[in-house]
């Protein structure tokens, strides 16, 4: 079975993952095509869409890869953000997004999910075209993943240093944390003040149609949903139930129906278990 050179619309670019101390080298397959998203963006014409990026890919890795195959220069790489993948079963679902969260980074190097995608943006369209062409040609010889990364680029190591760094990053210094909390709270309060002021304004001044919007915060605040529900429920109870004979009859009928339903359910449950041969006392 030889691998096909092309699957619909995509170019296959095999690369070699270098051997580690424990396992030998392996071949990894990248799938490339011109980037053509549904919502076009300005740098689309000079971008390549890459599928099945190795999990430890960084911008430097991909840059070195395309340089390695004799392609053009890469301006930047946009890694696939959270694709909403459904691996909610692990201990905790963690995003492997490359955007920097507002709580500070806790990893010195982010990883991609297995099989994920990335958009490689080249400096110009010819660079992209060259890369695509060489990729097609080069499908026989292999580029080694991670080779040719220029010395100046400092990529944080994987393995134990990465986890130790993570441990340290999750325990930031208190002064640093205090500062960030203070900034946030100051900003939040300022925003809140602005919001309240806007609300107050809407409360006072009629809108274009001449109505005054009812919003939270006024002297007579609108009732909360829960409270309204509670009141409604209370009202329902005050109704004169069982006053007319038809009501009594209706109620009895309802109760009987309910019991009957329950009976049928029970019966079904027993039948289900019978089907599973659960009544054999062996």
């Amino acid at each position, binding site marked *: 079975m030889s691998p096909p050179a092309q699957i619909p619309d995509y170019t296959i670019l095999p690369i070699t993952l270098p051997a580690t101390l424990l*396992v030998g080298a*392996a071949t990894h397959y990248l799938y490339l095509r011109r980037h053509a998203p549904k919502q076009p963006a300005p740098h689309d014409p000079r971008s390549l869409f890459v599928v099945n990026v190795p999990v430890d890919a960084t911008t430097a890795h991909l840059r070195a890869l395309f340089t390695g195959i004799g392609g053009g220069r890469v301006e930047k790489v946009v890694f696939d953000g959270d694709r909403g993948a*459904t691996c909610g079963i692990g201990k*905790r679902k963690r995003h492997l997004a490359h955007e920097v969260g507002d709580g*500070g980074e806790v990893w010195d190097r982010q990883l991609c999910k297995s099989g994920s995608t990335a958009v490689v943006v080249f400096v110009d369209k010819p660079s992209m075209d060259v890369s695509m062409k060489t990729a097609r040609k080069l499908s026989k010889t292999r580029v080694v993943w991670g080779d040719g990364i220029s010395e100046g680029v400092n990529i944080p190591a994987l393995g134990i240093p990465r986890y130790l760094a993570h441990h340290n990053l999750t325990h930031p210094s*208190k002064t640093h944390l*205090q500062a960030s909390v203070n900034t946030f709270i100051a900003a939040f309060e300022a925003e809140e003040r602005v919001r309240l002021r806007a609300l107050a304004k809407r409360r006072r001044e009629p809108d274009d149609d001449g109505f005054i919007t009812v919003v939270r915060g006024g002297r007579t605040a609108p009732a909360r949903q829960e409270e309204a529900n509670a009141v409604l429920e209370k009202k329902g109870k005050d109704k004169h139930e069982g006053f007319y004979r038809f009501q009594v009859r209706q109620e009895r009928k309802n109760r009987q129906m309910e019991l009957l339903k329950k009976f049928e359910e029970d019966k079904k449950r027993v039948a289900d278990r019978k089907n599973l041969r659960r009544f054999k006392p062996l």
Partner: protein
Amino acid sequence: MAPATKKRRTEIEEGDEEVRAKETIGGLSSEEEMEAVSKEDDFGDRTFEAKSKPRKTPKHSSSEQEKAQAISESYESKTNVFRMETEELLSEIRVDYRKRMAPAEKMLHKLKNIIEKIPRKTGATIDKVEGEMRKCKIHIPFPEPRPGADIKYKFSYERPAYMNIAGSYALKTVAKQHEGFAIDLIIQIPSTVFQEKDYLNYRYFHKRAYYLATIAEAIQDSGLDLQLSYVDLHDDPLRPIIVAAPSGGSETDFTTSKCLIRIIPAIAKNTFSASRLRPDRNAVRPVAERDTAKNSLPPTPRYNSSILADTTYFEHLAQLHDISSEAKVFKDACLLGRTWLRQRGFGSNINQGGFGHAEWSILMSLLLKGGGSKGNSVLAKGYSNYQMFKAMLQFLATRDLIVNPLLFDVESECARWPNGPNVFDGKIGLNILFKMTEWGYRLLKHEAEITLKLLSDPVMDHFEEVFLHRLDDPRFKFDALAYIPIPECLNKNNGLDPLLSFSQKLYDMLSTGLTDRAKLIHLTLPSISDLPVRADGINRSPAPAAQIIVGLLLNAAQCNRAVDHGPPAGHKDGASYRVFWGDKAELRRFKDGSILESVVWGTKDSKQSIYNQIIQYLVAKNFGDGIGNHIKFIGDEYTTAVGGGRDVSLFQPAMAAFEKLIKELRNLEGLPLAIRQVSAAAPVLRYSSVEVPLLSSGQLMQPADVVVQFESSGRWPDDLIAIQKTKTAFLLKMSELLEKAGTVTRIGLENIDYPTMNSAFLEVVYYEGSAFRIRIYHDREQTLLERQLLNKDLPGKKRDEVTAALSEHRRRFIVGPLHTQEVQKLSHRFPALSPSIRLLKRWFQTHLLSREISEELAELMTIRTFVATSSPPNSVMSGFLRTLHFISLWDWRAEPAVIGTVAKNASETFDAIRKSDPAINRHAMVIPTEYDPTGTTFTEFGPRKVVAARVTALARSAIGASFKNMFISSTKDYDFVMYIEPKYTLPGIRSKSSKFKNLQKTEITPQDIAKLGLNVPDTFVDELNDIYGDTVIFFTDGNIIAGLWNPSSESGRRWKVNIPYSTIPQVRGNGEEVLVLNKKSILNEISRLGGEILTKIEIIK
């Protein structure tokens, strides 16, 4: 039903009610309880009344009627379901006689013909008899003592006076069961074979044996394809019978009937004088002193009963026939009783307790006729089958037949029975429970009590526990076991049955010695093997293991007491106390000034539990070291396996440190809000962590989760992210204040990618080694999250996030602390709970499952074992094994494991969960509790369905295995295994890196604190899980990581952009292009990610 009938019935019942309420069995211990039950039964009676009708006309013309029943006011789901289940059970175990039994019936006719044709033989001497049988190579099953060569009496054979089927087959109450059942062919020996005094000195039994051998010879000669063997009827060595098994092949083969034929000799009622065979009479005269006065001879009740029992077959059959035509449900109740007894390992055989379905049905027939205090009947004929069954259990559970025997048609004292229960049928002159030993009876009573409590559970119906589960393994039934070897030469002079008298002695000795440490002591005697009919035949069954199994039900509060107090010095009992305990007894003065005889047991130096020390000491003292040193104890190894034994006091240092933390937090001055509550939420603080915390100095414990709640305030922001920041600000303030007081603190971040989840925690470290992780609970968060979920326009991704945040919040801040509180409480109530939980967690760890089975889930599984029964386990062994047993039986796909009295809609909630996710992608196991009614809080992240199935499979194989094998895990089931460098495992990271033992630092250093909470393997596997999702399932115990490729990923698929794993493009044979899983590249990636963490990757498949 017609209204008139109903009215009349109600009237009758109302009249009945009073009578029945008073109709308590004479001398009941708890009259109230009985009354409550009989009332409930009356209530149920009304419900059931109409249903006995549909059963008579079985096929579903009844559904209309049932519906009518359902909508009547008294409908109750639980009872109704139980009734339906009972009907299903009965239909499952009933035997189709006509279809299945035809071949066996044919064989019976053949046998009958053969036996009828046997010629008459008279007046043969012992020599002649033995010679005759030796010639045709037939063994005569003479019971011990065998007839001597000098006996005067003659043997003879005459055509049976009567021959017929009796027993449960004749009554049509046999049940389908694995091992098949037996048809009893009763052959009544004509009384002319015997002389008046033949009841004496085994003469009856010897003649009976010859009679039996003659029949065996005739059948053997007839050339029928049968396997014949002698079996002691119900292990009674005096009464051998022939058991004929089909051997296949010929046309008379009855293998398809799946039964055995037992040929049982019997005698007519008037063959011997019944009054001479009363339990207080002697029928075995000593050989030497023939002329001793009759009165001084010891009574031989068992011997007498063995003779009388041979007269009862047809009598009982008639009695049962009569009663079953009067009470329609009698047979059903017999079947239920039979099933119940069998599942608990009870049978008519002496070593199975001596109470089987035969005794059940006879006792029930007697109780339908009488047995009440004023001669009224205990059971009513109008009961439904379930009520009849329950009332029988009620009788067995409440009436102590040893202290308070049940006598029928008896006028005098003559019916007294030593050491055992007594149900004396005066008409026959027989105690129908004569085969029961004291311990067998106590166990039966205990089981009846347990079941009765289950049946009275107002919430659940426990049908499976009552009828469907096999509960006869002694390792679940008892808390501790001891295998005591039987001395090889039992004292033959010591009564008629030396083994029985030996075990009785043992039982009495252990009861005295163990006092209130054991609630129940049970002995299981070895079973007696079959004897081949032919003298040169090979014995098919293995030789009996010469051991008695002692099973103990412990009293958890008392069983580890170190000192036993005896009578005070100078008391008249002192001497006997000293004789009993030998050198162990000593006089001691106690704190309160009293001077008592006492026995003191070692607690520290010995690995053996105190009750085992007592057994060992007493057995060695009374039966010699030869036996005492060869006792095999089972149970202690479970206790020692968890390290540190079974005491919650091990956790005392951690609990004390927690108290200290609370105090310090409460004393903090300068916090903007006052602290309302500090609650624990960690295994360490509920006695259930595998490792005992703070055991060795110089080691920090893993930080224990603590939840702090402040007084409510209106000044909290009303925005989830701002709340998290405010909480961080609070933690910073607390940290500042604590540091001022000299405590070491650190702030850690979590859930960085989930801004709405809790984002920070405060670690507090004490130099003694304790460490805590404080999070702040703010109740507004839940409301805000719930409000977001109400928003219908929320995009799916965001909704998932909010749902995750909500469940995280509930688990961390609401359910977690409640769960901790509950486990703490229960650990004090059940001393065996904490070690059982820890052992179970270790078991999960051994099998690399501890990532999938959360700590809380393991705790809940164990708690269920303790709470869901009325007889909670009292030792680590029974606690652990019963939990495994539960896991092995739990059908988690179809039912939740409910703990305690949860809301009644638990099953509806469960149905909703399954309905919304029929493939069971989440929440494979559901355990609802009072504080977590949905039952999914702790099974959110596992086990997955595959893993849950593996748990069940492992539990199934573990319950049959020995203790050692239970904790051996093999890696052959996985696809690949990775080994973690010991330096980076959790203990490796925590250990002090010093070459020299004597230089080992015993202080907590700043480096230790910096490493607090660092768990590299765990983080690594977390990451792998995130990266590879469902493609690989990872299992780990912290030392190795095993992986399993998901079969659905392995199969290969068509091109698609979002395949969540690395692939290789391939062309299949049919030209189809597919992408297959690139295992090699994935392993390469993993190896690169792990770097120096991994030392070896082994590919197994």
